[in-house]
């Protein structure tokens, strides 16, 4: 294990942001002595660039969610004579979903620890457990959706239900996409090992999975807690 292929590169990055190893060519961009800390040290390392870009993506994703949240806030009372949240929400299912998702985030964090220790076995186990909890979350959510549709409370019943299915479903879609990604990440780690590019992707996947948790906390509050009061 060399110093430059770790995700939390101790040799240069990310703690010396923009002043470490050059981005494209070794040598160029080095040795600038007047750096003032305003990004004057030349291109940042790939580790920083990838992480930073992914953060920007996550922020844009959160903006998209915020549009759906805004729509739900506007339409939360537009039940059009149909059922409201209080009549529909299955409290225990929601609590379980929350628990599954939070635990999956914890195991996702454990996978990062295992990755840093370069343990193939424990990384795979932690990722697998993460995926299973994610899957369990999706099954519960899908069951809730199916029950509601069967009761005649599908998204076409009222504007409230449209926005509910859309915002919760969008989060569910993200979790599903995350599971596909997780599967390919496990395969990549297994076949290619802890290569620097694979490690960068693992960092991004971790960020993504934790961001889904943050969005779920907002969902839990805005859709379910406030919805139960309506």
């Amino acid at each position, binding site marked *: 294990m060399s110093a430059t292929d770790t995700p939390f590169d101790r040799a240069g990055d990310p703690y010396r942001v923009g002043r470490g190893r050059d981005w494209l060519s070794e040598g160029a961009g080095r040795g600038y002595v007047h750096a003032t800390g305003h990004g004057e040290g030349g291109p940042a390392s790939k580790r920083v660039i990838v992480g930073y870009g992914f953060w920007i993506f996550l922020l844009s994703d959160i903006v998209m969610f915020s549009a*759906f949240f805004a729509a739900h806030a506007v339409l939360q009372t537009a039940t059009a004579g149909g059922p409201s949240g209080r009549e529909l929400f299955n409290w225990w299912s929601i609590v379980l979903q929350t628990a599954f998702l939070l635990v999956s985030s914890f195991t996702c964090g454990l996978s990062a620890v295992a990755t840093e220790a370069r343990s193939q076995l424990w990384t795979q186990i932690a990722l697998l457990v993460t995926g299973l909890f994610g899957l369990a979350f999706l099954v519960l959510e899908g069951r809730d959706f199916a029950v509601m549709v069967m009761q005649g409370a599908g998204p*076409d019943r009222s504007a409230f239900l449209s926005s509910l299915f859309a915002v919760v479903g969008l989060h569910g879609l993200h979790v599903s996409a995350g599971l*596909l990604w997780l599967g390919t990440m496990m395969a*990549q780690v297994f076949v290619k090992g802890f290569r620097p590019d694979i490690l960068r992707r693992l960092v991004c996947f971790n960020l993504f999975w934790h961001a889904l948790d943050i969005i779920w906390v907002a969902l839990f509050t805005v859709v379910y807690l406030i919805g139960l009061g309506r």
Partner: protein
Amino acid sequence: MFGKLTWQAIPWDQPIPLVAGSVVVLIVLAILALVVLKGYLPYLWHEWITSVDHKRIGVMYTLLGLVMLLRGFIDAIMMRSQQAAAFRAAGYLPPEHYAQIFSAHGTIMIFFAAMPIMIGLMNFAVPLQLGVRDVAFPTLNSTSFWLTATGALLVNISLVVGEFARTGWLVYPPLSELPYSPGVGVDYYLWALLISGVGTLMTGINFVTTILKIRAPGMSYLRMTIFCWTALAANLLIVAAFPILTATLGMLALDRYLGFHFFTNEAGGNMMMFINLIWAWGHPEVYILVLPAFGIFSEVISTFSGKPLFNYRSMVAATMFICLVSYMVWLHHFFTMGAGADVNAFFGISTSIIAVGTGVKIYNWLFTMYGGRIRFTTPMLWSMGFLVTFVIGGMTGVLLAVPPADFLLHNSLFLVAHFHNVIIGGVLFAAFAGITYWFPKAFGFKLDEGWGKAGFWLSLLGFYVVFMPLYVAGLLGMTRRLQHYDVAAWRPWVLVAGIGIIIMMAAAACQVAQFVVSIRRREELRDETGDPWNGRSLEWATTSPPPPFNFAVLPNVQGAEPYWEIKRRAIETQHLSPEPKYEPIEMPRNSPTGFITAFFSTITGFALIWHIWWLVGLGLVAAYAVFVWFAWRDAVEYSIPAEEVARYDRERRRAREQWLAQHAGQPA
């Protein structure tokens, strides 16, 4: 098997779209045949289609934008001629066709002409001006471009297969909901914009990361060019605004496809929510277009005045001020919603305030020119035409920002004249200024000045003859999007505008001639120095066209206007800087990922429009397969050996030494 798609989808009974469509199909087939027969295909595939070089992608973006600009211009000609003919008469375009034309005109001009040209110029110039070798995510960049091309392709397919939206360019519900627009027109609109919107969002992420994290050593924030600053602001706006567009159009798609009730009349839907959401994207979008335009004018005016930009810091502050305030004005697009006096007053005031930032910039440009040794080249003419035109457009905008006045002028031709005034006078003039300014950098020869200047003067004249009468017609009460009309007082103004569009056609012909003539005379127009305009920023420090790696050694930036400093030092000392030590350079490999992704996106989009569900599934599975295949690649980069870098750079230094000898003894 093929969903809603039948032979009836092709408009056999409507001669205009059928003939236009057939001509386009024939031209495309002829070009494809030429490419295949002449054996250009491998060249195109290796050097352009799979290229991840930001300069190549920038050129392709700009080319796409120019072609779509012509397409949108043909729509404009049809609208002006229809209105000229349709006084107490039916004209030659039936209402349902006319409605498609004005919807397609707006959609194409904003999303597939103005946006690609601006993003193309950013792609080309920003990494060069930052003094680096590429953007943060080169393959993603290529994917962005090809997804934009997918959107443009879908909109143009609607010309021959099916129909386009008849709802205006922002598909307001409830008109755009299924009961009132049962055809595929709105679906074409939705999927074209959802797919190309993903591409634009990825561009935003890419450029924010590039500008904030990848700069040459010493390039601190306040040493970046104004174009880089405005590109940063525009891309921040993209990252924050385009997700709202995706969400809004996604909701409308859910309404249309799965019977949701976001914006419907019944079951509690709220159509004003659509108007709010779409303009929460739409107003920042205006600044996504015009901020890079301001950046281009800053570069051009400074270069051709032979002076540093006046009050650089206030320019940066004004740019970021506009970036921020652009999110606080969206309601001025619908003061008539009836949100009440207080809300309207807030948005009226914030709209007036945003003009202050632009006003600061206008004065900065004027004072840059003041006392300068101005060279009246084509890019400079476009910039000066902009200064006059944009001020008029800005002032009519401030007029519209007063809610009581807006109640009278809402949806009138006065409004149409206003936004064309700022978009043509601001964005389009900037596009032409930027293209003529950076063309020699991209291709190694200048554009013909004669045809360029003729194009400019005719455009300027044509613009005023078309749109000043429309201001008057709007004040006389003429609303927008009229297929025919009966009011005699409007007639003369509409006719004058019709004459104006003929002048604009002459201008467009000159612009096309400019490219044709320049390409034929390229040996005379050749620039060997890499610095044809006596430029000030780093893109002029390398050769024209630049090598794939842009700079043999990343420049060491020691002040604002780094290249100007380098030149001055060279003239003072009569020596170039000592030859650096050359090292091998790692560059990203070409990748067909973007093209293949766009191919399957086109198929998926088309299948969604026509409800061909098995094809949708196939397209999505293929997209996932491409993702995995791309993730599996092992060789990401290739290495350019140090000898080759040295050979290239020594050649460049020889050209510069010749230049230096010519400038011996000149005052710096």
